[in-house]
């Protein structure tokens, strides 16, 4: 991006233009300077440009003098002469780089989601020249919502003086890096303007506690270890499964004594074995999945991550091995595992992985490549839980393919169109219809679909 582009697109670089035209093209000095005073502040000065505020002042001065001469009145001549003074004033000096040392302080670097974090910015003029006209625009991360006060200030700073301003942002899940701060300096008359970009690395990490999930309907693809998923295998368990002929060595307490009394035959009760499953939570984080009811509402990806978090804790508590992956341009893969370490890793992945950033990435998503890689990584006995708003065909077709490869798939679709209050209402018929179509499509391929309202990610009965 060129300097001119930046100046055009950024609101901080709006050029004031009068109705006069530029009469001169001033020589631009392009000074690149790095901050040597504060190691945490890095400065880049853009080239100064004319604001064209005072263009025509000399013309006005001459016109007034001319009028005075024609009318033989000293008044206008004097006013014209005074206007020449303004012309001189407009040419005075050059907009210098904003020599600022900036520190940014957060009231809490690791807040909970929804917390208000107060950001205090302190900018000190470390240069030798005063900044007579200084406007500072802080680069608030795009994923954070400013809730209090603008992150901007306009002031004047003597050498050594400092300005402090603060604003509040509402923390949301993820790792947020502050962007470039822009400082605009002008000459006293405002005839020249220069933008200085100031980098002060500041980071806010918001790792939500994973919601405790309730039991999650898993399907019958399991590992050999004991767990919680009922299987179609007779053995040790709690639920009646079948009876079979007594074999020597069967435990006495499993013998069906009623039957023995009735018929005289020995029979053994078989109970349904409960085994652990390997589950991979697959979150749809393609650009298409970043849908929301309102521009500043939580996206479907956010709801999916929340639901996946609940599923992650629930499954891990139930003794299953859980992994995390995303459908998206960024690669994200947490192999299935169990234990406390794994729980922490999972929580961090869900909170801060760039693949699940609050705003979509610009990179291109190649579906075939992604699918091949995911298939290669996926353990053979793994079930897949897909979290996707199902706004287009891809997640359903991927789910169908995975299902066909023998990984039993359950699709959980956060219904982002539901308003908070209308969660039990009729809902938007169009979107519900859309969802149902998604259900049907997925179901047709053998996958199971569960629709979830936002806020209650895992509720609802699974449909077969």
């Amino acid at each position: 991006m060129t300097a001119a582009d930046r100046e055009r697109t950024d609101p901080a670089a709006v050029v004031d233009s009068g109705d006069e035209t530029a009469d001169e093209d001033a020589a631009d000095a392009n000074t690149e300077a790095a901050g040597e005073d504060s190691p945490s502040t890095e400065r880049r000065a853009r080239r100064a440009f004319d604001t064209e505020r005072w263009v025509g002042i000399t013309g006005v001065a001459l016109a007034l003098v001319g009028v005075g001469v024609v009318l033989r009145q000293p008044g206008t001549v004097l006013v014209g002469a005074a206007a020449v003074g303004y012309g001189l004033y407009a040419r005075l000096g050059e907009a210098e780089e904003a020599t600022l040392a900036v520190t940014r302080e957060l009231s809490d670097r690791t807040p909970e989601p929804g917390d208000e974090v107060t950001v205090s910015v302190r900018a000190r003029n470390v240069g030798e020249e005063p900044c007579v006209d200084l406007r500072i625009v802080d680069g608030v991360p795009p994923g954070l919502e400013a809730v209090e006060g603008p992150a901007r200030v306009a002031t004047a700073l003597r050498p050594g003086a400092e300005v402090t301003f603060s604003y509040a942002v509402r923390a949301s899940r993820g790792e947020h890096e502050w962007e470039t701060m822009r400082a605009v300096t002008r000459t006293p008359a405002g005839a020249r303007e220069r933008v200085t970009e100031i980098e002060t690395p500041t980071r806010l990490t918001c790792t939500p506690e994973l919601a405790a999930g309730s039991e999650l309907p898993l399907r019958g693809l399991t590992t050999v270890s004991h767990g919680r998923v009922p299987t179609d295998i007779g053995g040790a368990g709690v639920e009646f499964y079948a009876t079979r002929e007594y074999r020597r060595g069967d435990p006495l307490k499993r013998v069906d004594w009623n039957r023995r009394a009735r018929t005289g035959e020995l029979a053994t009760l078989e109970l349904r074995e409960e085994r652990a499953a390997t589950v991979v939570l697959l979150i749809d984080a393609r650009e298409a999945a970043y849908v929301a009811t309102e521009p500043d509402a939580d996206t479907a990806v956010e709801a999916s991550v929340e639901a996946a978090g609940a599923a992650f804790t629930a499954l891990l508590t139930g003794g299953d091995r859980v992994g995390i992956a995303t459908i998206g341009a960024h690669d994200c893969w947490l192999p299935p595992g169990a234990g406390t370490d794994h729980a922490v890793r999972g929580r961090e992945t869900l909170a801060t992985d760039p693949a699940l950033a609050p705003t979509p990435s610009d990179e291109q998503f190649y579906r075939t490549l992604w699918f091949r890689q995911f298939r290669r990584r996926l353990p053979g006995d793994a079930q897949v839980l897909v979290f996707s708003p199902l706004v287009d065909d891809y997640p359903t077709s991927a789910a169908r393919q995975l299902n066909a490869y023998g990984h039993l798939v359950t699709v959980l679709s956060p219904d982002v169109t539901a308003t908070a209050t209308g969660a039990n209402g009729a809902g938007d018929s169009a979107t519900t219809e859309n969802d149902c179509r998604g259900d049907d499509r997925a179901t047709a391929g053998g996958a199971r679909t569960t629709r979830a309202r936002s806020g209650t990610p895992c509720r609802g009965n699974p449909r077969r």
Partner: protein
Amino acid sequence: MSRMGGRERADRDGRAETDPPERDTRPPTLAVVVSLAAAAVGTLAVIVAAPLGGAVAGLSIVGLAVGSLAGSDRVLSWAAAASVAGIALAAAFGAGPEPLLVAGVALALAWDVADHGLSVGRQVGREARTRRNVAVHAGTTLLTGALSAGVVYGSFVAASGGQPIAALALLLFGGVVLVSAFR
């Protein structure tokens, strides 16, 4: 699960209520007030000199108010043009140099502060802290105007022992050439 959902919903409702409005890009109040006050002083000075010129210069107050309100540089420039026309008209009716100099300085300040306020409003907004910036800018412009008018008036009083205006104008032309060559 549903319990969690309930808490979430409450959070979201709370957020909806505290949503901040769009950034207010209107010029800071101080800039508008200073600008209008300066324009009023300037207009008053022109009215004292010549009422008809004052009427034209009075249009600049309207122009500055509308320009600040609508955020339009163009309207501000028209207001500046109106003040220049008002001063020229007042001179045509034979106004003395003193009130015209006062009017010139005041109206220049009015336009300058209004235009400055517009750019500050666009870049920083009305809600941010801008008081110091606007005050410093208004101060330097006023100082420049006062100095310039003072020097001009001083030399006028000292030199005008029957000097023809043409000589003064020639002197001034030299000054303008000098300024143009300044950079």
